[in-house]
């Protein structure tokens, strides 16, 4: 099992979700996050004073899948979340040692 953590733009969530659904991946956890990569922050104003926002708001998707689904999920996210502009996000993949479904007690692949 692998955990795929994808940082994406807010506006791309619906596209990514729909595309993943089409390849049969439904389980995910989505979190509002703030972060910085190559994309520079931007400047707003509050009552005439400069307000530098250097951490950009993004969404983080956490998806745990069996090893054989990893490539498909990554391809789908890259294809749907990409705009070509700086700030499209990143995908990180890590190993997962164990998964347990709390209701049924199922473990491993069956728990996903």
């Amino acid at each position, binding site marked *: 099992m692998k955990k795929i953590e994808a940082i994406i733009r807010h506006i791309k969530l619906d596209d990514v979700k729909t595309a993943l659904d089409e390849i049969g991946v439904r389980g995910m956890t989505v979190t509002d996050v703030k972060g910085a990569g190559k994309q520079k922050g931007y400047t707003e104003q*509050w009552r005439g004073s400069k*307000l530098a926002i250097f951490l950009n708001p993004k969404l983080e998707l956490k998806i745990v899948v069996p090893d054989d689904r990893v490539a498909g999920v990554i391809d789908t996210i890259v294809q749907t979340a990409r705009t070509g502009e700086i700030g499209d996000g990143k995908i990180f993949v890590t190993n997962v040692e164990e998964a347990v479904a709390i209701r049924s007690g199922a473990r491993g692949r069956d728990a996903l």
Partner: protein
Amino acid sequence: MSRASRLLLMVVMAQMLLSVLGAGAAHAQSAAPAQSAPAMDRNGSATGSASDLSPSAQGSKLTLQSLADEVGHNKVATAFIWLMVGFALVFFMQAGFALLETGFVRAKNAVHTMGMNMVIFFIGVIGWFLVGFPIMFGGMGHLTTLGSIVNLNGMLEVAKGWGILGTKGFAGAGIYDVGVLAFFLFQLVFMDTAATIPTGAMAERFKWSAFVVYGFFISMILYPLFGNWVWGGGWLSQLGANLGLGNGYLDFAGSTVVHAMGGFVALAGAIVLGARIGKFNKDGSPNAIPGHHIPMAVLGTLFLAFGWIGFNGASTLAGGDFRLAMIITNTFLACAFGGVTAMLIMWKQFGKPDISMTCNGALAGLVAITAPCAFVAPWAAAVIGVVAGGLVIGGVFFVERVLKVDDPVGAVAVHGFNGLWGVLALGIFADGTYGAGDNGITHAVTGLLYGGADQFAAQAIGAVTVVVVALGGGYVFFKVLDMIMGIRVSPEEEIQGLDLPQMGTLAYPDFSGSAPDWVTPHPSGLGSPPGKTVPATMTSVSLDEGGAGA
């Protein structure tokens, strides 16, 4: 649907049916007048007649005297009702200030800021009852629109006609009179408006215990003192009688008595407190500290504008003074022109129609029109509003970038600077159509544009005086209080947010329910586990640093 609500629905429907039938009957009746007197007055034409006058109702004979008494009673009755409506409207401004100020501060200080805006009202009522009202109005003579029974005749004068404070009515003594108490109530909410203004400029760092002392000081001493000089028959109001300066110093509903008083005490308080941590960089340049809840601030602004109907409108002190329609019109013209002007300036300068500053612009217009609203034409109200909308932005920048004073909500610019603009605008635009008899001067109030340079001089004297009293008096008070008990919270408390250490509760707790013992507020307010130090920046449980809760 429950049984009770079904029953209620049936009753409502039955009543609707009856009223439809009833309306038809009334229609038929007016077409052909009934021979016998109607048992019910359905169209309102029969209610209220000579038979309702007091002597007739009591069975005695109606005389010219009894009729005149009845008319006088009704005239005063309109004043009473108008004043009580005004009292209710202005009281609601307390809610407006609470929302406005709390919206402009950070979430970690929301309970503290909201709390100050409520508790200041209660403290103010006590101070006003004991000492404030007597000092302000104890020497103003008869209340001519409210029955004129009691003579408030206690005035301390430095020379004949130069009163400096009233002395009648301490703790309600000698003012057990309906007319005086109607006036007491109406004036009470004006005082509390002034008292709550500085809490905005001093928000996010003002120690609660010092705030309580401040509440008594402004409601018992500082506000009533200047108020006496303007509205209580004191020396500023007598500049016309004593020195021939127009109708004396005039401030119709309190641009200075209420707003500049609050605004300059706010400036004094913000100076003595110092800026919030992180507001200014080492080179003196300001940082933005955005408020946490702009919708709340917008709602507060709308509540304040709503309350201003009573603030200005009911300041006629007479329901039969139809100038009140002009007053309320002028009030909302200035509000609208102020708000739109501020929005356009911010939009042009910074690219976005900053809504927080638009709130300030609308309020600036309201503050500025408060003194002249009764004396100027609608076009002048519009001009006053436009100037106010620009002045408030300039004022905010001046306070922040020139004075280097941290005023989180813009109270100094809105209430202080625009309060002064209001009384000067009165001295410029008053068109000589209203105010004959004000402060004992028979001619109507006339400003600079209509040949009344003397009136403008009186206004300038009053404007300087309020700055001296509010800024000077406020500064000395806060300095002394700071030496005695300290008026600012510790840096640790400030960074953590005042809500937990000062108030013992959060405005928006993330999780409720059971928690380890050490999470509940510690006497120190830091919620530290025994033997373990939690950084002051952590409000309750944080998952940073490996999980403090583990």
